[in-house]
Structure formats: C-alpha cells, structure tokens
C-alpha cells in the first residue's frame, strides 16, 4: 500500500469518524443519565436525515435552516418519547433486571415504529442522497485531497462537540444535567427537576444524532434501513469509550472511522462489515470499562 493511499484513508476515516463520534456521543449521554441503551439510535439518525431532506427538497429551506429543522424535529421526537413512553415504563416497572429489558424493548419498538412511519412516504422508496451544502473542487491538503463537503462535516462536527462541551461545563442547565446523571436522587434533593432533565437529555441526544444524519446523508446513500450500519459503528465507538466517557466516545468514533477505512484498503471490503463487531467483542472482553474508564461500576447488594 502506498503511503498516499494510507494518508487518504486516514483523512477519509477522520471524516466519517466525526459523524460516528456525534452518534456515539448521543448514545453515551443517554446511557449516562438515563441508563438506557438507545437501540433506536440508527433510526434516529435515519429520521434526522430524512427530516433534512424534507426541509431541503419539500420546504426548499437554505442549509442553515435545514440543520435547524432536523435538530428541532429530532429534539421534539426524543423528548416526547421520554415523556410519553419511558416515563411510563419507568413508573410501572418492578425493580431489578426487568427495567433494563423493558427499556431496551421500548427503544427497539421506537426504532421499528420510526422505520415503519418513514416507509409510509413513498418518496423514500428510492435510494437518494442529500445535495451537499458545499460544492466545488476538492481542497488539496498536503498529500490528500478533501472534498469541500468532507471539510464541512469535520468543521460542523467539531463545532457541535465544542458547543456540547461548553454547554455541559459552563451553563447552569448543563451542570444540572451532569448532576442528574451522576446522582439523580441527590440532584432531586437540591432542587433539580430530574424529570425535565431526562427529557432534555433525550431531546439533545436525538437532536445530535439527527444532525449527524443530515451530515452523513450527503455521503451515504439514504434508505429507510441506513441506520443499521451506522449505529453498529457508533456502538463500537461508544464501547471504546466505556459507554460513559464523552471524550472517549469521540476518540472511539474517529478511531472506528479510521479502522474502517484502513481495513477496507489493506484487508478487504468484506472485512469492513465485521470490524466493528470485532472491536466491540475485544474491548468488552479485555477492558469492559473501555480504554479510558477507571473502575467498573459494580453494584453492591
């Protein structure tokens, strides 16, 4: 393999990795604060992408508004799902394992319902792509060529991550959200409205994944089933970060993007599909707390 292909693979890997990182972040902030693994994550990405397409093609909005439309739409869907479904499931469940199973099944149900709903629109039967926001000749960056659209993806993703970091670190609501995820009972005692925080978390996470969907909609062919491939890579990314570590998830996402691209170049395109599963199994069996996490949280009796 020439070093040129290696550099190009690295660059492409970072671009797709940024999108996986966003989706992994969405999974991690939901898991951290609500103990739910969102198995509908892939469908959230898919619906986000189609909301973007609706805004672009049907409402003919400009690209800034397209992102806004997708983000707000997914925020509402995520928040409603938490308020209507998860709130009820949580209130009804008996303590112990059954909550976990019930929550997972509920998110799986959400995934199916979303796929089913999108399928009702005949427009989605054909595989399409979003028109990229930035077009033009590729940018030459040392040994690699980057599409303008790819540069935009990286810039937008990094800006979003930065915004998320600032939000969690410095704003009042962000701090309340962190308090809720660390210890809901204590947060409640000091007056944090935990229910509202859960709803916000689901909203923010889904908005994040939705924007990631719009970003990837310009690169991957869009179909109702597109979520499946994307989500497994994002799961792997989140697992690398131990599923609770936000910077770890970002690192994992970019790693996964690079691994995926390099496996495609060096081994075979067939092996790409199995790479994320191998990563998940290896990391979980060797270091279940992730590459960054500290001690595994063990529940005492």
């Amino acid at each position, binding site marked *: 393999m020439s070093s040129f292909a290696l550099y190009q693979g690295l660059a492409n890997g970072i671009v797709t990795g940024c999108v996986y990182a966003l989706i992994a972040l969405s999974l991690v902030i939901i898991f951290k604060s609500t103990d739910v693994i969102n198995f509908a994550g892939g469908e959230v990405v898919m619906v986000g992408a189609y909301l973007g397409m609706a805004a672009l093609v049907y409402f003919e909005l400009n690209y800034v508004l397209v992102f806004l439309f997708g983000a707000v739409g997914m925020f509402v869907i995520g928040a409603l799902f938490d308020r209507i*479904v998860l709130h009820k499931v949580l209130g009804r469940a008996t303590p112990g394992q059954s909550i*976990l199973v019930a929550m997972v099944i509920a998110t799986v149900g959400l995934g199916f319902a979303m796929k089913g709903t999108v*399928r009702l629109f005949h427009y989605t039967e054909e595989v399409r792509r979003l028109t990229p926001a930035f077009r033009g000749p590729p940018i030459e960056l040392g040994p690699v060529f980057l599409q303008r659209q790819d540069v935009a993806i990286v810039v937008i993703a990094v800006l979003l991550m930065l915004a998320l970091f600032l939000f969690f670190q410095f704003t009042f609501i962000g701090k309340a959200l962190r308090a809720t995820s660390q210890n809901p009972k204590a947060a409640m005692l000091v007056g944090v409205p935990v229910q509202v925080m859960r709803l916000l978390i689901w909203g923010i996470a889904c908005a994040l994944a939705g924007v990631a969907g719009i970003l990837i909609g310009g690169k991957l062919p869009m179909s109702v089933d597109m979520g499946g491939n994307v989500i497994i890579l994002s799961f792997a990314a989140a697992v690398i970060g131990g599923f609770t570590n936000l910077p770890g998830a970002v690192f994992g996402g970019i790693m996964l993007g690079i691994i995926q691209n390099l496996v495609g170049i060096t081994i075979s395109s067939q092996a790409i599909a199995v790479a994320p599963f191998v990563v998940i199994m290896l990391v979980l*069996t060797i270091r279940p707390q992730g590459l960054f996490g500290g001690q595994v949280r063990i529940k005492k009796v």
Partner: protein
Amino acid sequence: MYGSPSLGRLLPLLALLVVGFVLPRYVAEYYLYLGNVLMMYAVLAIGLDILLGQAGQFAFAHTAFFGIGCYATALLNIRWGVPFVIGMPLGALLAGMVATLIALPATRLRDVYLGLATYAFAEGAQWVFNSWTAVTNGADGVRIQPSSVFGIVVRTDTQAFPVVAIITALVIAATMYMMTSRLGRDMAAVRESEHVAMASGIDVRRVKITAFALSGVYAGIAGGMFTLFQSFVNPEQFGFVTIVLVLSMIVVGGLGTLPGVLIGVVILGLLPEVLRTVMRSFQIYQELVYGLILILTMMFMPRGIWGFIRGHGQRKKK
C-alpha cells in the same frame, strides 16, 4: 413450582402429541406450515428465556446458535447424507459448544455490556454465514434436501408436523423439569441477586455457563427443526430482525414464565398472518404496527400478557 412436574402439568404436552398426529389428516398444508413455524419459534423462545428470564442474563446471541444448528443439520445431510435423527442432535451439540465458548468470556460481563457483546457476536456470526462461502454458500444460501426421519423421508409440511410436535413436546417437558430442578432454582437465585446466590454457596459462574450452553442447545434444536419444513436457508434468516422477534415474543408474553413465552410466540407469530388477511396493504404497516405493539406492551403490561393476567387474578383473590 417446586418438586417434579405433576401429571396434570404434562397433560397439555400429551395433547400436543395427539394433535401432532391427528391434525395433519384434516388441516390444509398452509396451516400445518404455520404450526411448524410456531413450534420452532416456541423452542427458540424457550431457549432464550432460559438465559434471559430464568438466569437473568441479558444476552442477544441466540440467532447465532440458531444459525449454527440450522446450517450444521442441513449441511451434514447434504454433504454426507447424515439423517435428521443424528444430524439434528449433532447440530444442537455444536451450537451448545459454541455457546459455552462464548459464555467463558461473556460471564465476566453483565447488563448492557453483556447485551452489546453478545449482540456483536450474533452480528459477527451472521457475517461468517455470509462470508464463509466454501461451507455456507454465502448470501446465495443453501438448498435443503429432504431428510429422513427413521426411514421416512420428510418432504412436506404434513410429514414434518408430527416430528416437529414431538420435538416441541419433549423440549417443553425438559424445560418444565429443568425449572423445578436444582439448576432451575440456582438460576433464579442468580437472576435475583448474584451476591446472595454466591453467599448461599451457588457457583454463579458455572450456573451462568450452564444457562448459556442450554440456551445454545435449544437454539440448535430449533435450527434443526427449521430444516425439516424449509427448503432453503440463507444468512438473512439469522439477523437482528429474528433476534428482536424472539425477544419480543418473550417480553410481550411474559418474561421467565413458560405459559407467557408460549402466549407470546402464538400472538406475535400469528399476528402478521392475521393482519395480512384483515388489511390488504399490511406489508407497508408491518414495522409500524410491530413497533407500536412493543412500545404499548412495555407501557401498559411491563410483565407481559401472562404477568398481566396473573396480576389481575391475584388482585381479585385479595
């Protein structure tokens, strides 16, 4: 629940056997096919319930063992002419062995981490079915040859039905026995609290590995049953959709209860057929309806249909 299963409990199984032999004479082939599919799902779901409902291990790898059992039984028959009565147990054994191997590292994990690892394994196994073309013929699939059961070559659903019914009855009887045995109680203890189980002198790790192995054997048996009434097998059938379907059967019916699992199998197994006759353009709505059922069940009947029925019965008694 303790003690050995009484005769009264085994009575429904005898009925199943009788039905297995009598029904094929009077019912159309299509309904027998449905019956075969339902019974196969019953074995598959009971197997997953041992791991999930009895032992409380949140594992997703079931379709991998299902696929291993199915491919092994089919290929043994095609390549070497191994009859079903030998091929199916061999396939189940192989599935059980792979499940044991998976259990060794997997028992170190729990909850969502276990779920993710086993989910990854199942997807990886599907990739192997797809890519190991020399053995599985890849995405093109394998055409299953009719196998012989005690000299009778099973070619139709009518011929397969009694065999499938016998296997199902045996599996259910074995499960009933297992649930009341020491192993069943050990698994329940592990499910409720690993720490308490450990303090009571239960070898938690061994119980978990046994549960994995048993679950794998059940899935392997289901895979073998699949070859009896299907003429074609391809990797598509062992994907995420199948595991979700089986998981939903258990959860919608009632996790950890045999009657609940069977109720779930019948309802979710028959639902597509019923809806297809009610709504003409059902195919489009299938996913939506299915998703809503899952969400609504979790919202209003978190312990499944059987738990809901039993809960009402107990409240009335009080």
